[in-house]
């Protein structure tokens, strides 16, 4: 807990990552998996859930061990903890659905270097008790999943005319090829960021007397 900062209630802690500190739209963290796997809604949600699992598990463990881990080797320790959960989720997805596993490819293993997870472990779990860490991680994971779904949904609808594999417009739909290519990821992410910033600026414009809240643009 940073001194001077207001203690958040448990609900606020949970909702922090969903909206105010959304990892995709506000903190703009974890962009590599966000842009790479958000080709379809299914991939996006699977990736979001896998990341959430690793996030919750590793922040819980880091928070439990926060007084035991020596400061000097904390990053290495966090990475070992995160890698353990990534291995679990890697085998888990392989067991549940081989199709999803093939679609996500190396990005499942790359969860280990996702900066949202290391960031949460370092900035939150190492300073907070387990319950609060898990609540925060759940919120962040949900926010990440929502963000990925927002990208994957739009890209799948425009790029294939489908959502979760169900055809929305019939067989005559003209796919926007660019949307399933890497540039499409940037276009859609840019559009969502634009929308979020616009909504935020409208809110701050509406209440100019209130001092601006600390935006954590990382």
């Amino acid at each position, binding site marked *: 807990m940073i001194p001077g900062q207001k203690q958040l209630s448990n609900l606020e802690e949970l909702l922090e990552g969903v909206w105010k500190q959304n990892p995709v739209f506000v903190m703009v963290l974890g962009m590599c998996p966000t842009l790479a796997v958000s080709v379809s809604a299914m991939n996006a949600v699977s990736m979001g859930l896998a990341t959430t699992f690793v996030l919750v598990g590793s922040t819980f463990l880091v928070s439990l061990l926060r007084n035991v881990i020596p400061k000097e080797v904390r990053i290495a320790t966090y990475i070992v903890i995160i890698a353990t959960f990534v291995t679990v989720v890697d085998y888990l997805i392989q067991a549940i659905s081989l199709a999803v596993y093939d679609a996500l490819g190396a990005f499942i293993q790359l969860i280990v270097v996702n900066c949202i997870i290391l960031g949460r472990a370092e900035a939150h779990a190492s300073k907070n008790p387990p319950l609060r860490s898990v609540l925060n991680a759940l919120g962040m994971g949900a926010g990440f999943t929502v963000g990925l779904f927002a990208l994957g949904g739009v890209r799948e609808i425009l790029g294939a005319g489908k959502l979760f594999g169900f055809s929305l*417009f019939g067989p005559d739909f*003209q796919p926007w*090829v660019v949307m399933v290519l890497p*540039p499409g990821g940037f276009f859609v992410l840019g559009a969502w960021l634009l929308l979020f910033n616009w909504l935020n600026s409208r809110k701050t414009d509406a209440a100019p007397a209130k001092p601006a809240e600390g935006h954590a643009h990382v």
Partner: protein
Amino acid sequence: MNPTPRIELRASPHVVRGNSVERIMFHVVLALLPIAAFSVWQYGLSALAMLVTVTLSCVATERLFNRLSGNPSTLTDWSATITGLILALTLPPAFPLWMAVVAGFTSIALGKALFGGIGCNVLNPALVGRAFVQAAFPVAITTWVPAFAPNRFSEFAPTTFTPPFMTPPDIGEWAKRAVDGFTGATPLARWKFENVLATPADFLTGAVTASAGETSAILILLCGAYLAIRKFMDWRIPVAVLASAALTAYVFQLVDPSRYPDPLFVLLSGGLMIGAVFMATDMATSPVTPRGVWIYGALIGVVTVMIRYFGGLTEGVMYAILIGNALAPLIDQVTQPRVFGQTREKAAMGKKA
């Protein structure tokens, strides 16, 4: 009673020629109209519907972003109209109208408004729009219709009124019925894949398969000359683009005449002419230094020929100009002229500091 003599103090310039953004842009629109008219004569109703739709969607998008940003309308500076016309002239004549709207919206929204409007854009807005639809709808943007089809003023191409978000129907039957023996390939594609060269006469009369405004080489040069003479356009850019493209093509032909076409074919085919005259010369996205303009033009010409000869696509003008646009600020920076009276050594020192 004598009025008190008024003394006005103000900074230079004290004598202005009366050129304004509005005036220059209006003359560019005038210069584009003959090309658009030729395109309509060549391709008929479909081209007319496409030209009008693209231009209107560009203007409407400009207005929408004016409203969103709370700024006064910038429609009167004609720049959105120019973007629309140029974009329409680079699209296939029978391009589905709903895709044309997507192209128009993207060009103004992504290419211009997001950067801050006129003068702030990094890339040519029309080409941003075209690059987007090229990547999004690769089949539709390479579906061509025959020029001078006898039924061009009585019926639309079947693709024109494709319902929004739907795949355009196959145009082969219709085109073959309209013009016997129509192959549906541009001269560049026929050269690349079938090794068949179109003659200069085909290009000059416009009897080739191409984007709406690409074929009228003489008309484009005349309109460009008008703009250059009125000093609304930097003549060095088209000259540099065309000269460097011709020179590059000439060198290749010297090396292997059986494989590479003659420079005249390179100049007349595809969008090189309209690209050099109307797109590379966009004031906001081209360099301003005298030497930089030549480098910029030469770069576009060389890259165009390279993409045509060695790239996967048949046409490279669009990407060549976009690359040139992206490099324009850098070219400006390295070609800064010496300040009058400054010695070479001093200028070098100033640059380092």
